[in-house]
C-alpha cells in the first residue's frame, strides 16, 4: 500500500530524513517511532504531498507522490500534530467543508458525516464551535476529518499527544477499530502506544531508519534472556546492609540459570538487585526459593522483560553513542504508565 524508497529531505543546514526505505501492506497498522526531532513529521509530510522529497520516491496506493499528487491526496487521510480545525466553525459545518474539498459527492455527504461523528464520538458536540471544545474533542474532530472520505491510507501524526489518560485509551481503541478498512501509519514517541496499537514498527532516529519489523519479532530478537528485579531485607532489621549485600549477591550468583547479579542500591533497610538470566531460562522460582531458604525477607520479585523502550534505546544508542534524546522518551513513558 505504501512503498518508500530512499526517501530523503535535505534542508540548507541539515538532513531531516536520510534515505529511509520501508513498505506497508494493506490493512496494517504501523507505528512510526522515534524521539522528538527524528524526522517523523517530515516523513509524513512527504507521504501526504505536503512537501516534496529532495531525493527518493514514495508510492501510496500505487501512485507516486511527486508525479501523481492529486491521486495520492484523494487516497490519504491526514491528521497533523495539531488538528487542522477552524475554531470559528461548528463541528458539522467543518466536516461538511472538509468533505467538499476532499471531493466527496454532495449526495450522502451528510449521512457520512453523521456516521463519522458517531464513530469518533463527537455527535454530542455537533453544533458547537470547535474553538470552544476541549483538546480531546478537537483531536477527535481532527480524526473524523481524516477518515471522512474513507481513505485507503490514514496518516496520523502523534494522535494521542496532549490528551488525558482516559482520552488516550479511547483514541487508541478508535484507531485499532479503524485497522483493516484502512492502512494506518501513526507516529509517536510513546513506546507503549506502539506495543498496544501497532503490529509493525518503523523506528527512526536522527533521520535514519534504525529498524523495521513486527513488534513481536523485534522484542524476541533482542530478548532471549530474562531480567528480574529483586528487593529483599535481612531477617535482622538492624543488620549492616553494606555487609549484607555482598553475601546476598554471592548466594544469588549460585542460583542455576543466573548469568549476572547487579547490586542496585541499599536503602531503608532493603537491598535491590537486578538479575539477568541465561538465555531461555526462567529463574524466578529458583530465586524465590534461594531467598526464602537463606532466611531473608522477600519484598519484591518481578520480571522486567525487555520492553520496546529498551529495544528502542539500545537500537538508537548503538547507532550513535550520544543517544538520540533518550530523556524525553523515558519521561513520556513514565507519565504514560499510570493509565495502563
Amino acid at each position, binding site marked *: 500500500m505504501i512503498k518508500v524508497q530512499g526517501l530523503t529531505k535535505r534542508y540548507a543546514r541539515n538532513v531531516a530524513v536520510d534515505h529511509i526505505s520501508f513498505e506497508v501492506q494493506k490493512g496494517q497498522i504501523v507505528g512510526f517511532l522515534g524521539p522528538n526531532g527524528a524526522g517523523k513529521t517530515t516523513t509524513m*509530510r512527504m507521504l*501526504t*504531498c*505536503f*512537501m*516534496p522529497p529532495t531525493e527518493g520516491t514514495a508510492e501510496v496506493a500505487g501512485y507516486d507522490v511527486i508525479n501523481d499528487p*492529486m491521486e495520492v*491526496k*484523494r487516497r*490519504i487521510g*491526514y491528521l*497533523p*500534530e*495539531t488538528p*487542522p*480545525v*477552524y*475554531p*470559528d*466553525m461548528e463541528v458539522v*459545518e467543518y466536516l461538511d*467543508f*472538509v468533505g*467538499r*474539498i*476532499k*471531493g466527496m459527492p454532495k449526495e450522502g455527504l451528510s449521512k457520512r458525516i453523521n456516521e463519522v461523528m458517531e464513530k469518533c464520538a463527537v455527535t454530542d458536540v455537533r453544533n458547537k464551535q470547535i474553538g470552544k471544545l476541549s483538546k480531546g474533542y478537537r483531536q477527535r474532530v481532527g480524526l473524523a*476529518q481524516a477518515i471522512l472520505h474513507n481513505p485507503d491510507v490514514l496518516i496520523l501524526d502523534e494522535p494521542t499527544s496532549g490528551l488525558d489518560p482516559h482520552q488516550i485509551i479511547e483514541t487508541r481503541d478508535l484507531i485499532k477499530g479503524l485497522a483493516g478498512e484502512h492502512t494506518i501509519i501513526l507516529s509517536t514517541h510513546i513506546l507503549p502506544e506502539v506495543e498496544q496499537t501497532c503490529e509493525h514498527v518503523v523506528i527512526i532516529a536522527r533521520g535514519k531508519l534504525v529498524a523495521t519489523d513486527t513488534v513481536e519479532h523485534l522484542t524476541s530478537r533482542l530478548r532471549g534472556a530474562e531480567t528480574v528485579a529483586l528487593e529483599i531485607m535481612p531477617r535482622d532489621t538492624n543488620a549492616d546492609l553494606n555487609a549484607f549485600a555482598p553475601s546476598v549477591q554471592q548466594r544469588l550468583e549460585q542460583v542455576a540459570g543466573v548469568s549476572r547479579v547487579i547490586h542496585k542500591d541499599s536503602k531503608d533497610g532493603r537491598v535491590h538487585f537486578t538479575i539477568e538470566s541465561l538465555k531461555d531460562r526462567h529463574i524466578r522460582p529458583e530465586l524465590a526459593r534461594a531467598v526464602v531458604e537463606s532466611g531473608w525477607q522477600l519484598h519484591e520479585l518481578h520480571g522486567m522483560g525487555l520492553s520496546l523502550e529498551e529495544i528502542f534505546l539500545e537500537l538508537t544508542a548503538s547507532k550513535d553513542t550520544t543517544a538520540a534524546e533518550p530523556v524525553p522518551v523515558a519521561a513520556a513513558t513514565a507519565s504514560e504508565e499510570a493509565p495502563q
Partner: protein
Amino acid sequence: MNTLTICRKELNTYFRSPIAYFVLGIFALLAGYFFYLFVYAFVRQGMVAAMQGQNFPMNMDEMVVRGVLQNLSVIGLFFLPMITMRLFAEEKRSGTIELLVTSPIRDAEIILGKWLGAMVLYAAMMGLVLISFLTLFAYGKPDWRAMMVGFLGLLLQGGCLLAIGTFISSCTKNQIVAGIATFGVTLLLWVLSYWSDFDASITSKVLNYISVTAHMDSFSKGVLDLKDLIYYVSMTVLGLFLTARSLESIRWRA
C-alpha cells in the same frame, strides 16, 4: 466548484468573527460622512449661486459622484489590509494550511477562492455606498452609466490591492506583520503619484503609472480607459501569481 467552497468558507469566517462587521460598519460611517459632505457642498453652492442671481449649470456627476468616489478609493486603501491580512497567515499559524494543501484541490483554487472571498466583502463595502448614491436619483439626474464605471474602477482597484495583500499574507505566519506590510505597500502605491505634483520628468511619469490611485481618475470621471483597465487586471494577476509561487515555496521550505 472548489473555488466556491473556499470562498464560502472565507466569507463564513469573516462574518463569524467581528472583522466583517467592523470593516463594514466603520466604512459605512466614513462613506456616509463623505457623501453628506459633498452633497452639502453641492447644495450650498447651488443656493449661493441662486442668491447671486447667477444661473450657471451645476453638474451633480462632477461635484458629488466623482468627489465621493475619489475619496472612497483612498479610504479603501486603509481597509484592504484588514481584509487580507489573515487570509493565509492565519492558516499557516494554526496549521490548517496542512489540511488545504493535502486535500485534492489545486493551489490555484485555494488562492482564487480566498481572493474571491475578500472581493465579496470589499464589494459589500462598496455596495453600501451605492445605497446612498441611489438617493441622488430622487433629487436629480446623475448619469448612472458614469456612476457604474466609477464603481467598476473601485472594484478593480480593490481587486488588485487585495491580490497584493493576499500575496503578502502568504509570506508570513503573523497576521499583524502581514497587515502592516500590506498597509505600507498600499500607501506607497498611493503616494507614488505625488511625485507628479512637483515634476513632469520621466521618473514622475513612470511612478504615476505604477501608482494605483492614479489609474482611478479616469474611472471616477466615468471614463472607461483601456490603459487603466489593463493596469488593474495585470496587477491583480501578478499578485495572485506571486501568491501561487509563495504557496508553493511553503512546501519547499516548511
